């Protein structure tokens, strides 16, 4: 089976330090894949390896089944959009777009057609004669994307392209890049540290940590079935709540904050062990009258109109964030009752805090 891109056991070391520890990944034609992870997880390094700007220490990179390790960046047929845009400051926008094409001796009218098409698509056709210095951040970003589009690349590579934009513009460009993907249908690889960008844009998310892939999957699969505590905590805002407890062999879960519940792991436990219970803020019910599984005191709250975030604490000091899809009257220090939706809990145990498979009706 032909993949648009395949990585086989990719490793990368800088001197003695290995930063990428053997990555295997296949990306299909037309997919929008997002590499996400905290800073220093190796996501940008991985993108640079794919682009050919750095060479892997070992492992193979295959573009359409062709090994490209020894093919320089200029001959891989990829396009890359840099975080800093990297526009040629001494050239007009038009020359910025056409420069790469002129270098491959493309006919003049074909270059003009592509430049004009890209400019129209990105709504920068009135800026073609300006210099990058005369453009706003968002316009520069568009030019950088335009420069990638005109090459009609096999794969688009985006290296945190939106992180220099302000919040409003970022939202707008996020939608535009998604639209662009559905219009062009090209394979795109997008690197970001922003889990919202990952969740909203990706066909598939690759979560990276410290040079290893933690989990690969569709955004909602990762959100609903995180493989481990890291992925669970990384995706979703506000973050998933984590509560410490112990799980007995018979499936009795005792949380330090005072709740006891029965759960059914698919694979029986060898012995009693300490576990972490994970529960998303939206999977918690609230009662102002103090009824429910437990009571917690309100430390702080944020009323956003459509949603309310309540930051509470249990008597043992553990905190719990609750997200409500409605408005309720709240006071600081108030005691409220909270109810856990046990069909949506995650239990993380053992080395690497992997998620335990639970035997239950999936929501």
């Amino acid at each position, binding site marked *: 089976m032909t993949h648009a891109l395949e990585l086989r056991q990719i490793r990368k070391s800088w001197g003695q330090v290995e930063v990428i520890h053997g990555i295997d990944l296949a990306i299909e034609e037309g997919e929008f894949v997002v590499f996400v992870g905290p800073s220093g997880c190796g996501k940008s390094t991985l993108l640079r390896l794919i*682009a*050919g*700007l750095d060479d892997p220490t070992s492992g193979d990179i295959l573009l359409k089944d062709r090994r490209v390790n020894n093919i*320089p*960046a*200029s*001959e*891989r*047929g*990829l*396009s*890359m959009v*840099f975080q*800093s*845009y*990297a*526009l*040629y*400051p*001494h050239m007009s926008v038009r020359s910025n777009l056409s*420069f*790469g094409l002129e*270098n*491959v001796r493309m006919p003049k009218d074909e270059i003009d057609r592509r430049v004009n098409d890209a400019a129209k698509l990105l709504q920068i056709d009135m800026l073609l004669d300006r*210099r*990058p*210095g*005369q*453009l706003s*951040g968002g316009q*520069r970003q568009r030019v950088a994307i335009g*420069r990638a589009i005109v*090459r009609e690349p096999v794969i688009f*590579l985006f290296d945190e392209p939106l992180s*220099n934009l302000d919040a409003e513009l970022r939202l707008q460009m996020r939608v535009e890049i998604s639209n662009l993907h559905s219009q062009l249908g090209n394979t795109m690889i997008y690197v970001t540290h922003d889990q919202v960008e990952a969740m909203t844009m990706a066909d598939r998310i690759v979560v990276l940590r410290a040079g290893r892939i933690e989990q690969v999957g569709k955004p909602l699969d990762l959100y609903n079935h995180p493989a481990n505590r890291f992925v669970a905590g990384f995706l979703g805002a506000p973050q998933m709540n984590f509560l410490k407890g112990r799980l007995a062999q018979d499936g009795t879960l005792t949380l330090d904050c005072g709740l006891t519940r029965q759960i059914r792991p698919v694979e029986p436990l060898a012995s009693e062990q300490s576990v972490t219970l994970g529960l998303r803020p939206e999977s918690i019910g609230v009662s102002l009258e103090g009824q429910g599984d437990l009571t917690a005191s309100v430390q702080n709250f944020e009323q956003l109109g459509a949603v309310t975030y309540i930051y509470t604490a249990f008597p043992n000091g553990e905190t719990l964030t609750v997200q409500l899809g409605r408005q309720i009257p709240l006071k600081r220090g108030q005691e409220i009752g909270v109810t856990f939706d046990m069909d949506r809990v995650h239990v993380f145990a053992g080395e690497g805090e992997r998620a335990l498979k639970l035997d239950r009706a999936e929501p």
Partner: protein
Amino acid sequence: MFPTPIAKTSRSWQLTYQSLLPVALILWLLPLISIAVFSIKPDADFTSGNYWGWPSSFEGITNYSKVFFESDMPRYLLNSVFITVPTVLGCIALSAMTGFALGIYRFRSNLWIFFMFVAGNFVPFQILMVPVRDLTLNLGLYNTKTGLVLFHIAFQTGFCTLFMRNFIRALPFELIEAARVEGVSEWRIFWFVVLPLMKPALAALAVLIFTFIWNDYFWAVVLTQGVESQPVTAGITSFNAQYRAAYHLMSAGSIVAALPPVAMFFLMQKHFIAGLTLGAVK
């Protein structure tokens, strides 16, 4: 703000400043002023000991026309041009390329090669006098402009490389990477991306090297010895005969010889613009 603007200081300090400044300025420029004044004095003023006084008569036109029409000065000036311009072009062309290679490419001995370029500047050039003279003589380049040009290029390229390499290092590296991903060959990256952005450095270096070479006296004396090859700095002494020196003509000649570097500076000035990479990143 430091230093405090004069307009905001006390009245007494303002007066002190305003009276001391012109004094300092005149002291500073005194040698230049005296040369300028001498260049319009008659020959007699020197023999009569009128060094600093008012010229007894104004002979500016006579002196300068003698320099241009009755001496070898035009020839010497032309020699200077034929020595300086090729040297500047050669140094800049070579150092732009060495600077690009050392600034952009990461190879094992990069830093050592760079250090060798820099270390060349630490060699006191006086100790090279005899070997370089022998070398040019053996190559048959003694007393030729070519010999002087070749030596100057070789000797100046070290400093120029230091200058260029550091300037290229300061350019946003993503520009080069972006071009590479776009399929641009390295030679075209150098020519169409890096070179245009180096304009301020090229202009500054051109002025600097032009001034260095134009004003060089040492090597001109060591490697050349006649009107057919000597530059103006060495040629100016030809106004000295065995028993008398024509100081009024030497002064006029010096003024003429000093003008080209100044002209060069003003010519290149508009290229010293900062912020050429504005809009490249962020």
